[in-house]
């Protein structure tokens, strides 16, 4: 009898060990097979590699923000320690969980929230890559929360939550770097701050529109989650600033932005719409865009100088240059300017503008 009990006990122990091995293997396989785009997955995972509380300005939003907010310009010219935590077509419900996760390790003074999702009309996220961008969130609660928020029915999220059902066929596109943790951020290294440069140039004209106060209702779920973000920022005592990224295609977005600004007003939250016709800071629509809506490198530098000066004016943001905790910003900037020496400014600080 005792022998049988011993045997059964040994069996359960072996079963648990086997199950654990299987789970570890599956988790690693999921990581390997997950497309590690530099936006979304990489920028989120890389955030965990940053020293704790070393980000003063956290930018959250869509590709407009990660291509437009040049963290290197903000750092090297103004000493602003900023990090872009953005992903392609990131809806507010993903932004919400992204912020929640970021707040586990960082305590930013300001959160910059990209206003672009205000124009998104879909109730749920249909594109797999947007949902897959949440795979960088290592906190299970926030990751599952983001996935559940993306899909219409909870059962639709099961494949994403388990991971492999959604990513298993990526074995066709694997490279050696996919097996490494953390991911190589497209060769940018751990000091990278989430800015993704776009090198192309696409010629545009400044959007022509009648500047009105007319509002167009936002999608109900986008509104629900942007309100949650506002409430979260208030609860955490973090300043939040809405950002309307300059965009040649802005005319169609205008009334949605008005609605968003109106909602933000209810919470006493302000924003800067860089599409305002009165705002002139040297941005050229003929040469500063990479495509129909993203700023290119030149545009990002011009825009970020303006953004930095506005941030300095609005908030009490210390110049962190020379502080050992922020050494990675120096490394990131040095790497970046080595690749883009034309954008290096000799004079430092506010006086350069």
């Amino acid at each position, binding site marked *: 009898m005792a022998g049988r009990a011993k045997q059964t006990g040994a069996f359960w122990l072996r079963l648990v060990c086997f199950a654990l091995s299987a789970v570890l293997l599956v988790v690693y396989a999921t990581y390997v097979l997950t497309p590690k785009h530099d936006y979304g997955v990489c920028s989120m995972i890389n955030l965990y590699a940053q020293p704790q509380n070393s980000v003063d300005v956290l930018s959250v939003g869509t590709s407009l923000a990660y291509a437009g907010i040049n963290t290197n310009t903000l750092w090297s010219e103004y000493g602003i320690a900023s990090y872009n935590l953005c992903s392609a077509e990131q809806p507010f419900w993903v932004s919400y969980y992204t912020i929640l996760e970021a707040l586990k390790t960082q305590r930013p003074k300001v959160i910059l929230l990209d206003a672009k999702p205000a124009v998104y009309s879909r109730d749920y996220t249909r594109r797999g890559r947007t949902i897959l961008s949440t795979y960088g969130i290592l906190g299970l609660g926030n990751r599952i929360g983001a996935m559940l928020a993306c899909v219409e029915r909870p059962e639709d999220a*099961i494949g994403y939550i388990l991971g492999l059902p959604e990513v298993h066929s990526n074995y066709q596109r694997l490279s050696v770097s996919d097996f490494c943790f953390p991911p190589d951020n497209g060769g940018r290294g751990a000091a990278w701050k989430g800015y993704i440069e776009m090198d192309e140039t696409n010629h545009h004209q400044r959007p022509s529109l009648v500047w009105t106060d007319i509002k167009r209702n936002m999608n109900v779920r986008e509104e629900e989650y942007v309100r949650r973000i506002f409430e979260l920022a208030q609860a955490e005592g973090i300043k939040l600033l809405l950002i309307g990224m300059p965009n040649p295609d802005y005319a169609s977005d205008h009334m949605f932005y008005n609605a968003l600004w109106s909602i933000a007003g209810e919470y006493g939250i302000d924003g800067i719409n860089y599409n305002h016709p009165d705002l002139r800071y040297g941005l050229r629509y003929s040469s500063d865009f990479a495509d129909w809506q993203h700023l290119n490198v030149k545009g990002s530098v011009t825009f970020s100088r303006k953004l930095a000066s506005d941030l300095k004016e609005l908030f009490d943001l210390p110049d962190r240059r020379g502080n050992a905790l922020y050494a990675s910003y120096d490394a990131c900037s040095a790497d970046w300017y080595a690749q883009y020496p034309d954008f290096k400014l000799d004079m430092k600080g506010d006086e350069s503008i």
Partner: protein
Amino acid sequence: MSILSLDFLVFFAAVLIVYYIFPLKIRWVALLAASLVFVALSGWQSAAHLSIVALTVWAGGLGLQALRGVRMRKLLLTLLLMLNLGAMMLIKYQPVFSDWFGFSVWEMGVPLGLSYFTFQSVGYLIDVYRGKVQAQHNPLRVWLFAGYFPQLSQGPISTWKELGHQLLEGHRFEPEQFVSGFQLLLWGYFKKLVIADRLAATTSALLTENNALPGWFVLGGVVLFAIRLYMDFSGGMDVVRGLSRMLGIELPENFRRPFFSRSVAEYWRRWHITLGAWFRSYLLYPLTTSSASLALSKGASKALGKRVGLALPSALATFLVFVFIGIWHTANVNALVFGAYFGVVMAVSMLLDPVWKAMRRRLKLPKGGWMTVVRLVRTWLLILLAQFFAFTNSAAQGFSLLRQSFSTWDFSAFSEKMTSVMPLLEWGIAGAGLLVALVVDLLCERKKDMDARFLNAGILVRWPLLLMLLLSILVFGIYGSGYDAQAFLYTQF
């Protein structure tokens, strides 16, 4: 609920826990409840039809046991068979009847596992009639026998002697049996999801672009269809048997590496074993022992000699059985050609068996060695010929593809043709999967107790292999979003 779905795995995990928590004596009640839930989730039609069949079979069984007169018993059995098999045929062949008569007799879809539970129930009735088993007094026990959930999707077809008592006895949790079941389950999923579903693209290619295809492409496609069908059906069967084994219940084997057969007769003893056994026991045996068969034997003996006289009734009965097997698959000309073809091959081989034996003696042909290879190839060719009618949509299409396989064998566009079906990497994965399956089948063919040997191997051997198998299924399996998961081919029958 497909046994391939995540829902099913969650359901089965819950069943496992509940089953082993239940007191030993009433564990069959847990199985009954699980089967009821499983059938109900497949639609109320399935639940209703299965319940009606179980009820008639229960009452019929008791009636057959209670009646004393031979005539009355025969009459009751005939009525019960007509009722159950008639209902099955009406539902199964509804589209054909609809074409013939212009109206539908059944518009509620085919209940899950219709053929399987009907055949199993009918087998029970005949066994009661023959006095081989005792009729069950509890209708719920008969329901469980007919509707035991793992085997509803595609069999196997068990007899009461094989399954009935196992279902009703409580089974203690046996770690070795549990692990063995899990291994079989994984192996089944591997065959189905990694190999069979990957090869589905080759069948589609044959059916969609069957014009002017090079001969090698058609023949290769048909070979791959035969392999796919085997991997699909036997993989599904391994899943079903693995699930059942985890519950402590051993279902009969349905495949015994049929592609190693040296004759068509052997092939049919190794392929869909339980269906063959059912037809042998409940159709072939009554046919060959009928008075008409005996009269035919006598007449043929007088006219054609004793040997032919003895073989002719069996050959004729075998031919009829295969025609029935063909029609059981689907009521169309293809299925008829498929069944009749095998019927003719089997009947002719039975009739010519004495001639063949005499020839082998005269030519002093060896039993093994190179003759084994010749017999394997011959069997393969005979099986392949039938496959042309197994997956095509019409007999004309089957004959057209058969013609094309003997047409031009132009290899100039080989790589282009192959990659038009699926990328090279996918071919590589399918090939690697097939190689693994071949090695396993070869090992099992040589050593009968491979399962036990594997179980007794140390964890340093077993665990890495099992983890690799699991990972292969999860990574290389055809499932998830963006894929059209293929249902088991035999579920439709």
